[in-house]
């Protein structure tokens, strides 16, 4: 009854799905390199790409941090301050997490 492959049961269904997700994700991973190797890097495009890393960070964390309220904002500020002073990433991370747990313990 399922000769046309309308129902694909485990385990082959799972294998197929994982392969499909892997393929789609890999295409996302390589697409940027493939496209940029065919685009001429004008000064304008270069400026856009230079803005990208910081833009991705802010676009990723700002909604999450604001959703988590004042405690998260203070913790993030403490982490950034510690990183700016020490320039050691692990110190910045620990100060951020420490600040958050201390605030939460007393709030």
């Amino acid at each position, binding site marked *: 009854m399922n000769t046309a492959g309308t129902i694909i049961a485990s385990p082959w269904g799972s294998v197929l799905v994982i392969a499909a997700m892997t393929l789609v994700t890999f295409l996302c991973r390589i697409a940027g390199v493939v496209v940029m190797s065919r685009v001429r890097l004008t000064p304008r495009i270069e400026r856009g790409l230079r803005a990208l890393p910081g*833009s991705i960070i802010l676009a990723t*964390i700002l909604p999450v941090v604001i959703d988590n309220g004042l405690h998260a904002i203070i913790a993030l500020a403490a982490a950034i301050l510690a990183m700016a002073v020490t320039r050691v990433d692990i110190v910045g991370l620990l100060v*951020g997490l420490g600040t958050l747990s201390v605030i939460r313990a007393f709030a």
Partner: protein
Amino acid sequence: MSPALRPHFSSAGLRHGARAALPAFPGFIMFAAAFGTAAAQKGLSLGETLGLSAFVYAGASQMVGLEIWQQAWTPSTILTIMTVTAVVNARMILLGATLQPWLKDEPLARTALNLFLITEAGWLVGTRYHGEGGRDVGVLLGCGIILWVVWFFATLSGFFAGALVPEPRRFGLDLVMPIFFGVMLVPLWKGAKPALPWLVAGAVSLVVHALVPGYAFIIVGALAGVAAGMLIE
């Protein structure tokens, strides 16, 4: 600045990259363990769980994938999960775009491996190194390999042991990724004017997040930042 400004590859770079990835470990361990636990609760087999972590290797899409996981698949449910995966992971296109100048003279197979292992955290570590003048592609690959190993084994332990920390909120670990990302913002800072597009990106992502459900806010915000960067002289 080091004299070797041309992109190159060394095994010393691999080790350097593996060490530089250390601050990303806590976030990776938390997230992968949470995924392993959620997958076990959902009834996925060990093979399915590890397969997702090893091959798809993209946390947000793995979690969303669990939501729509089926016991028996039809072409239409497979198409659905592929579409959702593509939407959640589309932001990776942007990561690759920034890496292209660094990778352009690399052998194809090594670039394919490097890109297969790309995650936001690894890309941030690599971007920081590149921003400080480093050009050794080994650093990017070393970072990618070690993070994949961490991800794989944290998934495995999460599958059997449940969440590794009983109360992650108490230690602030629920926000470990955003805080790590925020820390990595500091070495990217080159003054107020180059950071103006970041502000645009943040503002747009807040608006999109308020209006559109899902993860669209990341890619729309980031693209707004790129557009702002192109417009600002």
